[in-house]
């Protein structure tokens, strides 16, 4: 490793195991230089977050040393980490909704509290690095990107010199990502070291100076970003050559399958979550749905799946020459009994799609437990068979099919869920953020499965957040903004810029 730059952090022989068997990190030697942006790249379960958590004082290494500015340190708690100038922004924000930005930022600091001074300092930090926030705004009024900004300011306020950002761009629009990158460059110019964990290779290229790669808990190597290609990074990360494009075949024989007309959904407070939404999803086609998170994607899918109270509008299901079926007012069981094979991979995999504490085969039963010969007793044999098939065909890594799904890694959980949902050969397949948190390999497995369904004539509705993926996978893309359809564009001809603009344009042309 180069000794030209001053090192801010060094890991030496750091090992961390969980329960003696699972090795999260093994003998990791890694340096982070002063004033650089380092991308930490690796598949799911390769130990990126664990390694960073040890730096942030959340975990304690089993073996090895951590050096900060050349000095050996022991980081026993997040407080120790703060004292050493290390701040971590986690994937899940840790903010108090009813407090203002300022209150959240100073929360937990010792000494006399002076909100006015604190506000002044926060504004100084904002000026220095180019953040835009209102210190008096309450968290519940904030967008995801604003909340993230607060988290970053929080660590800067505590004087962090070393920042760790765990998948910061997963929740941002392209425009917001660009803004974040600008801020990161400002921080770097100020001499701070930044470690960013991300799965998106084009972002690695755009922002980082150096890439460090972990595979199965081990440090594989690092490279200067400018001198390497995305393909090289992927191959190093996976350990073999990977094909990096999604195949998009022309839709065959596309006919309307789901026709949504003037759909309105309101939440408990009476606020419109979906307003006058109309579109058609065709058989043999992938309809991508783009939008900033919380713009009605969840409500739309749940409305079609029969999980959402619908105020007005219609959802028609058409297949072959049979008469159209109205899905409004039906619950999932009634939809199934209508003979509509509708599959749904919800965003909340372990909280909705699967039962975390049940094993694989019991989770297969969720869809099929009402079948079987007996009226009272469950048929346990077929779900077991299905579980075995899915484990084999989708290469799910699990000790056995009797393992509770909560013990599987994110990618494997998703394979189990998607596997179950497509097992019933659906005529409609809806997926919400199907590859969120998944590594490249698992993601491509999921894309392949979706494409196979499309070829079989299934109408696929794919809600996604990564615009690059949406652009490669979808035949058409519907953009939601604030619960309204702001545009439906052709996936082959549109670009990221157009989508980004539609995502922030309320209500389409006629409403402006």
């Amino acid at each position, binding site marked *: 490793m180069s000794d030209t730059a001053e090192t801010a952090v060094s890991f030496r022989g750091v090992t961390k195991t969980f329960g003696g068997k699972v090795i999260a990190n093994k003998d990791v030697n890694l340096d982070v230089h002063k004033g650089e942006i380092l991308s930490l790249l690796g598949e799911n379960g390769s130990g990126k977050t664990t390694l960073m958590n040890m730096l942030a004082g959340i975990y304690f290494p089993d073996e090895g040393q951590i050096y900060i500015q050349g000095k050996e340190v022991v980081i026993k708690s997040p407080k120790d980490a703060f004292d050493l100038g290390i701040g971590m922004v986690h994937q899940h924000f840790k903010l108090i909704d009813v407090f203002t930005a300022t209150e959240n930022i100073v929360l937990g600091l010792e000494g006399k509290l002076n909100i006015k001074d604190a506000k002044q300092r926060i504004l100084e930090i904002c000026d220095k690095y180019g953040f835009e926030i209102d210190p008096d705004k309450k968290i519940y009024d904030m967008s995801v990107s604003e909340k993230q900004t607060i988290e970053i300011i929080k660590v800067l306020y505590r004087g962090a010199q070393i920042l760790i950002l765990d998948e910061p761009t997963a929740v941002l629009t392209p425009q917001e990502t660009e803004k974040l990158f600008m801020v990161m460059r400002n921080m770097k110019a100020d001499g701070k070291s930044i470690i960013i964990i991300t799965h998106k290779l084009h972002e690695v290229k755009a922002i980082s100076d150096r890439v460090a790669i972990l595979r199965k808990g081990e440090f594989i190597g690092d490279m200067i970003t400018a001198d390497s290609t995305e393909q090289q990074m992927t191959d190093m990360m996976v350990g073999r050559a990977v094909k990096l494009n999604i195949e998009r075949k022309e839709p065959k024989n596309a006919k309307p399958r789901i026709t949504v007309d003037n759909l309105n959904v309101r939440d408990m407070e009476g606020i419109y979550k979906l307003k006058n939404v109309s579109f058609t999803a065709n058989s043999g086609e992938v309809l991508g749905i783009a939008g900033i998170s919380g713009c009605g994607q969840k409500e739309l899918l749940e409305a079609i799946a029969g999980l959402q109270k619908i105020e007005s509008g219609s959802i028609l299901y058409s297949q072959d020459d049979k008469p159209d079926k109205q899905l409004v007012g039906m*619950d999932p069981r*009634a939809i199934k009994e209508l003979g509509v094979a509708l599959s749904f991979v919800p965003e909340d995999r372990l909280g909705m799609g699967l039962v975390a504490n049940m094993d694989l085969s019991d989770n297969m039963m*969720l869809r099929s437990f009402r079948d079987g010969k007996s009226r009272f007793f469950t048929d346990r044999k077929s779900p077991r068979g299905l579980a075995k098939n899915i484990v084999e065909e989708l290469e799910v890594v699990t000790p056995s099919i009797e393992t509770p799904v909560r013990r599987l890694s994110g990618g494997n959980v998703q394979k189990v869920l998607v596997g179950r949902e497509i097992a019933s050969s659906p005529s409609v397949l809806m997926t919400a953020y199907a590859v969120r948190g998944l590594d490249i390999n698992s993601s491509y497995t999921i894309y392949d499965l979706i494409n196979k369904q499309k070829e079989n004539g299934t109408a696929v509705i794919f809600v996604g957040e990564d615009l690059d993926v949406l652009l490669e996978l979808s035949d058409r893309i519907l953009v939601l903004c604030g619960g309204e359809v702001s545009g439906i564009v052709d996936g082959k001809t549109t670009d990221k810029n157009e989508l980004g603009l539609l995502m922030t344009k309320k209500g389409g042309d006629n409403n402006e």
Partner: protein
Amino acid sequence: MSKTTTPREPLFHIVKRDELTAKQATMIRVAAIIIGLIVCAIITTILTGDNPIKVYQTIFKGAFGTTRKTWITLQNMSILLIISLALTPAFKMQFWNIGGEGQVLMGGLAAASCMILMGDKLPNAVIIIAMIVSSIVAGAVWGLIPAIFKAKWNTNETLATLMMNYIATQLVAYFTILWEVPKGSGKIGIINQDSHAGWLPEVGNKYLLPIIIAVLITVFIYIYQKYTKHGYEISVVGESENTARYIGIKVEKVIIRTMLLSGAICGVAGLLLSGGINHTITTTIVDGQGFTAVMVSWLAKFNPITMVATSALIILMDRGAGEISTTFGLNESFADILTGVLLFFIIGCEFFIRYKLSFRKSNGKEVKA
């Protein structure tokens, strides 16, 4: 570099274990019970000066000393077991039914009222059928009311079931005054003492009936939870209502159905207490077992088979308490202290099943560095 601050690892840290095998977990639990018994022995010696082995022997003798004592122990055990089993499906559904006391009491009241109102007027078989039906219905209704509130308006079931206990107690108090024999005594006394009308028939001997019913219900609940569609629905609703809705389970229906079952089985316990064992009804006939059953069910982690053991432990200590108080002149509460210590170890060992302590390795590291 200065060597002023030698970094030191903390003495130990808590590490999450990999999931243990059933065998390893059992070993930890057995070890916990043994350690618990040893600690109990030490406490006994310090506080009383008595020989702990003797005290244990006496406790055991109190429960199983004679054939009659053994039968009573088994009978008590079966009532506690039935109530625990009744609560279990509700708990599995994460519906915290702490109203077992009231549900049993209502079952008992229904049975007793049949005995009083129909006694000597109708054929015995009719009375008994009426008792069975009415006690099951009464228990079920007592479970149903909080279930409806929960299902329709998402009220807190813990409070609702708890309050229903007091209503049941007051109802029994009211009817006790109404039906008291003799007038002014404030109690009903043995009902139909001469005719035995409505007394549940003896099977084999007078202790066996509740035991047989307990065995049947144990098997039933075990199969119901493990192999039926209802049981599966209960687990899904308990684990995640969102998932239940997602697959089209009507959560409200499952809550109501399960609480009907829970209350109905409590009603059976009431029937046995009032029609089979005591042949009367009092406000204290359930004697807190509706609450003890909560613990029995939890200790067994809602497994009906394990519940046989946990209810046995509680009853053993309870029956032994009387014996050591007479033999050693100890307060009856002393047995409660021992029970408490044992439970502390049994529950506490769950921590060690999930976590382990990882101690600092001696020096090796510093030498290497």
